[in-house]
């Protein structure tokens, strides 16, 4: 599973992406966030602000109860500020 981070999440983590293999009981975004938070202090710091973090699965914006699959590309980011 590929995880991508943008904006301040990337800055805080010091990385823009990582490949992970969560266990079978990690079924949706919410589970994934909890699981990732336990990976490192930096991860915990990022996901403490999870209310202001948005998520996309394979380029589709989703909410946190959305199911995840092993081959998904999952992105975490703050609200968009282009234009």
């Amino acid at each position, binding site marked *: 599973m590929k995880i991508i981070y*943008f904006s301040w999440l990337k800055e805080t983590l010091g990385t823009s992406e990582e490949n992970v293999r969560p266990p079978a009981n990690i079924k949706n975004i919410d589970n994934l966030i909890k699981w990732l938070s336990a990976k490192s202090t930096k991860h915990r710091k990022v996901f403490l602000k999870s209310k202001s973090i948005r998520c996309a699965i394979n380029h589709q914006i989703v909410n946190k109860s959305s199911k995840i699959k092993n081959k998904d590309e999952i992105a975490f*980011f703050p609200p968009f500020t282009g*234009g």
Partner: protein
Amino acid sequence: MIKVQKQKINISEENKKLLKKKIGAVVNFIGVARPKNSSGKIHYIEIEHYPGMTEKKIKEIEVYVTKKWKLNNCIIIHRYGKIKPGENIVYVGTAAQHRNNAFKACEFIIDYLKVKAPFWKIEQQKNKKIFVKSKKKDEKKIKINY
């Protein structure tokens, strides 16, 4: 036509494409990097995007507005990377038979880009990097069904 690019936008070239067709009205929007914000001088901004998803979201809005407002043509270009104050960031051009449609479509596209396209803006000030926050006002403005 949509483009997500690093280099400056050549506005007159894009306008020429819009004016080629047999239309009655062209509306343009050009977003420009400002030299300062409320907290001080901005040396440059940096725009990050999500390659793949960005193009997809912009393409979606192009298809939607072209149909909804019966456009003859529509051009959307958004830059990423480092952008200096005074440089263009985004260009939206709409061509239609009548002005109301060209105006509505153009304004809708830029409103949409602000909140629905995966871009993130960072302002580089003297000693700090500011991750620009989205505006509630902008998020409320955009309502789409497609």
